[in-house]
């Protein structure tokens, strides 16, 4: 049982910091029905981190980690960017490798774990920013879809390279002035969700993270479909309030605005994914 790696030996417990004891005792393990409604009470799998005050990316992290149906056997792969500052603080096995190779690393991990643990479900989830997913890592992202890797890819789209100081990215909207696009971006936002569908993903969603319960639903669907069918892709709007010049309490307002336009909820479900989702609903897991 992988959950044993969080159990503390009684003889040493009195020396262990409370936050680690809480992970064993108050986090939700072994319960696929866990979800965002645990957040007000349970110990989260995310510890204190260094993202900016009011950053919606941290909200996304909270919802996703609270929604993993099988955290005790989930591996998360990330890439370079703001997100990579959060990963040391996630109470799971996670990987930061290089900028843009996250889906390749995840492929290797997933295939090896299937070979090493044929009787166990080990979910592999990629969490990376838009630069990593759409620009520098597009090759690895799409190729993992072509190969039908059974992994869930989640892109945090803040429409900018935030960690390096606000440069234009492939997902920046046309005309927007950022560093490296001093005359405004010359070409349209890359429709990554559409590329994901065309490249063979079985479950694809575009949305903002303005609704925690909705995020929980799509994360669970994406993971269950990836487990049984093939690649799934979530494209989440997590605006960089710093780079677009908003205040620290403006993130939710910004996301709710964009819910009405370019991040209007969009969901694609392949016929095979439909079956999995129907089955999981019957089992009461969705």
């Amino acid at each position, binding site marked *: 049982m*992988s959950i044993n790696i969080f159990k503390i030996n009684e003889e040493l417990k009195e020396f262990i910091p409370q936050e680690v004891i809480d992970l064993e005792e108050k986090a939700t393990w072994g319960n696929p029905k866990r979800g965002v409604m645990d957040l007000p009470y349970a110990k989260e799998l995310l510890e204190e981190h260094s993202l900016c005050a009011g950053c919606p990316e941290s909200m996304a992290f909270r919802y996703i980690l609270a929604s993993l149906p099988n955290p005790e056997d989930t591996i998360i792969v990330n890439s370079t960017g703001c997100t990579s500052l959060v*990963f040391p*603080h996630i109470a799971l*096995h996670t990987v930061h490798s*290089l900028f843009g190779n996250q889906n390749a690393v995840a492929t*290797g991990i997933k295939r*090896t774990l299937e070979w*090493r643990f044929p009787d166990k479900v080990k979910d592999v989830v990629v969490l990376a920013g838009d630069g990593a997913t759409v620009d520098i890592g597009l090759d690895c992202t799409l190729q993992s879809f072509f190969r039908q890797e059974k992994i869930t890819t989640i892109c945090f789209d803040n429409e900018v390279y935030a960690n390096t100081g606000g440069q234009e990215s492939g997902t920046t909207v046309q005309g927007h002035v950022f560093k490296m696009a001093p005359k405004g971006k010359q070409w349209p936002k890359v429709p990554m969700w559409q590329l994901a569908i065309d490249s063979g993903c079985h479950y694809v969603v575009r949305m903002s993270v303005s609704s925690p319960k909705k995020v929980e639903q799509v994360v669970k669907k994406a993971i269950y479909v990836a487990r049984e069918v093939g690649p799934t892709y979530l494209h989440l709007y997590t605006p960089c309030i710093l780079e677009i010049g908003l205040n620290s309490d403006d993130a939710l307002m910004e996301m709710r605005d964009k819910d009405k336009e370019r991040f209007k909820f969009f969901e694609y479900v392949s016929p095979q994914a439909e079956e999995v989702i129907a089955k999981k609903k019957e089992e009461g897991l969705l």
Partner: protein
Amino acid sequence: MQKLGEELRNRAGQKIVDPEYLLFEAPREKVFMTGSEVVKEAVKRASVDASVSYPITPQSEAAHLIGELWVEGYVGVYFRGESEFGVMSELAGCSMAGARTITTTSGPGTLRAMENFPMWAGSRLPIQLVLMARGINSPLSIQPDDLEVSFLLDTGCMVWYAENAQELFDMILAGFVVAEQPDVHVPVVNVINGFFISHTRESVMLPPDDIALPPYNPYKAPMPPIDMEMPPGRFLRDPFVMKSNYISYATHTSWQFEVRAAIERARPYIKKYLGGLIEEFGDPESDIVLVSTGTGAAQAKEAVRLLEDEGVKAKVVKLKTIRPFPINELREAVKNAKVIFVPEFNVVGWLEREIRRYLYKHSDAEIIGGPRVAGGMTMPPEIIAKDVLNYLGKEVKHVY
């Protein structure tokens, strides 16, 4: 791994034997095959979990053959990746998840993949790369030229260099054993000169194929594998370590030294499993020394035979490992040398640079970088012999 009676067997059903038995004691039979085919034979006896491939001349055939082993059940995971960058990243994933891994590449592929090699080393992944060296420059060449090796010297990977198919076979097996030692646990690059070794047949002695190395045990690795089976549960491989992440710059320094220390710790294991970091050939007392590696060493040996016909005694010091560099072994081997020639298959003379670096103030010998060939040229032993004879002021009788 399963136990059948008294015997342990791997997942392919092969009997698991000690590395010493497989390498030194098991009966061997003579076969006639290419370097590429030899890669397959080594992988077949190595309980390999995962291999990812990408086509590039001249390594493609070896990579196909590993695919055949996957079909036959000798390799757990196998597929073609999207590029060498992708392949090396996929292998990093496989290795982090606890797999014994191997792949092959060549020339531009090595450079395409380059960002991964220091990452492999820093992540302490004992991945094995068989490098079939070829040209990398523009204008493009698919021919043998080992300039690319110089780019790998400071990645934190071990770099070994095989002279022929036999040595390649033994080095691949020894490579897994040494690289996976818990106190070593860094990648190993086994280099051969492309085409000269990969595409020519020679006789090779092979042990039976129903025995294999013990499987890799990731739970003895210096870092936990990424499989949620070993504490700490909260574990990132590998965090940024810099002051803006609220830790000291010292961590990065210490970490980098640790990777280099790991290579140093490989020395006793290399002595045990390769029989030493260097090999000497010719007259041990000679003051004319040819220091080379791989095919260069093979040609130098022929040159020593030619020189013997001319009444000149010389010796070859073949470097079997470049990282770790056989510092003490080389100094000892050239302690009587008056002149050292360094035949190389590249235009820059990276091996000469290495030798000068480690012999500085440790040898009074004159070091001559050359002869050098590149871009696919062969290095006839005659040109090496000619350089030596010219240096000695002797008449060069051969017609070249």
